[in-house]
């Protein structure tokens, strides 16, 4: 068996794959890698199939030692690392993969050739942090099994044109939500005209935004309804939250807007305090 030992787990390192869509009627969310593009790229760089499980490393501070020579790739966030970002590296005997503190973005993705081969729960190896499903966060001293050598070869790639996650003001496209009519007539302009600040309480369940409140004017009770990642719920105090991959399957706060699917990955990398604009889009 191929494996690696977790020397330092970092503050929160999770196993993730493409999640468990299709179980929402039973109350199980999709979960899965927050930065889907970074996970897909990391798998591609080491020749893994797209469904292989990777490690999602929040903020860095991780040291991993393979038991045998192992191809690895690090994508997503940028920071000091023992390997180059966005390319495959063969770790030799005794070599350790180290990730320092993230400097751009906050979630590194680490793919290992063969994939992280922990037991799947309901068809996925993803950790759902809200429901407590899937493998628990990595612990120091833990041994992670690695799957068999995949059929895919290590692709010959000189450079992947993926920049570091941006540190400045971020813009994401949003579409009108199903409960926009519960807000005042000028609420859409207020939502899309504000430079919001990412709150420190953000996590995989949601990105909380602070700024001038956008309070719902219709205060009648809204029965809970189905939610998707990217839906922007507004709590009674007027604070918007963009739901993440581990959000509850249903929710009772009105959805004022929904982030365009193509921009969801950007939310995985926003840092507390970063400025974010919600850009009105019909594209």
């Amino acid at each position, binding site marked *: 068996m191929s494996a690696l030992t977790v020397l330092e787990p970092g503050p929160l390192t999770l196993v993730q794959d493409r999640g468990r869509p299709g*179980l929402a*009627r039973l*109350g*199980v969310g999709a979960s899965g890698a927050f930065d889907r593009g970074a996970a897909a790229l990391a798998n591609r760089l080491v020749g893994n199939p797209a469904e292989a499980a990777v490690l999602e490393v929040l903020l860095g501070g991780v040291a991993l030692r393979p038991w045998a020579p192992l191809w690895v790739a690090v994508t997503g966030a940028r920071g000091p690392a023992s390997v180059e970002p966005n390319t495959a590296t063969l770790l030799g005997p005794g070599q350790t993969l180290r990730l320092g503190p993230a400097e751009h973005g906050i979630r590194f993705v680490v793919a290992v050739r063969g994939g992280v081969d922990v037991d799947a729960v309901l068809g996925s190896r993803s950790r759902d942090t809200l429901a407590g499903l899937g493998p628990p966060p990595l612990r120091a001293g833990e041994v992670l099994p690695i799957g068999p050598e995949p059929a895919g070869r290590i692709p010959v790639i000189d450079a992947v044109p993926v920049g570091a996650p941006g540190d400045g003001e971020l813009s994401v496209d949003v579409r009108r939500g199903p409960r926009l009519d519960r807000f005042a007539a000028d609420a859409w302009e207020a939502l899309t005209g504000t430079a919001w600040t990412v709150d420190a309480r953000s996590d995989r369940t949601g990105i909380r935004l602070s700024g001038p409140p956008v309070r719902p004017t219709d205060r009648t009770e809204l*029965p809970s*309804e*189905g*939610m998707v990642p990217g*839906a922007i719920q507004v709590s009674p105090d007027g604070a918007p939250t963009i739901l993440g991959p581990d959000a509850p*399957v249903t929710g009772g706060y009105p959805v004022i807007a929904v982030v365009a699917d193509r921009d969801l990955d950007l939310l995985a990398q926003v840092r507390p305090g970063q400025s974010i604009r919600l850009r009105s889009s019909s594209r």
Partner: protein
Amino acid sequence: MGDRAVLLEFATLEQTLAGYRGLEAAARPGVVDLIPAARTVLVVVDPRILSPRDAGVWARAAVPVPADAVEDREVVVPVRYDGEDLDAASTAAGLSPEGLVARHTATRWTSAFIGFSPGFAYLVAEGPGLGAEIPRRATSRPRVPAGSVGLAGSFTGVYPRESPGGWQLIGTTDAVLWDAAAQPPALLAPGTRVRFEAIR
């Protein structure tokens, strides 16, 4: 609702469940998830296969399946009616504790939707049910044990796992409501009929 979902609204809970049954029966490629709730069904699609617009057309063409048109699976849940809130809930319903237990066990319930946590089914009564709306507790409990049977509004439900909760607790069951290794993992998937049986 964004690039990957369509929210369908219904006038009543019964119509929602009938609509959900109809959509399930009309299943087609590109529909990733159906999320029934109290007045809505959210259709989640894979937009590479089915656009939200086409999903809306598909959903409107689906024929609702009313409750009396199907014999869904019926599950019997044995309950010890020893809950801490049995007296308070009975008072709220204008019944004696024995009367509340009699109505709870005489009613046929249906799982309408799952909310709150994996496998937590909101069960609705066929017929008058308890005949009263049961208020939630003024303060929710930080820890409700798995298997606790509760009441809230016109719903009854069973906590699948230990969790916080504000429902009035009337009893406990040893039935396994949620087992991630089982197929299906939830005992009370939407549409499942449920009867409660008093045990000592």
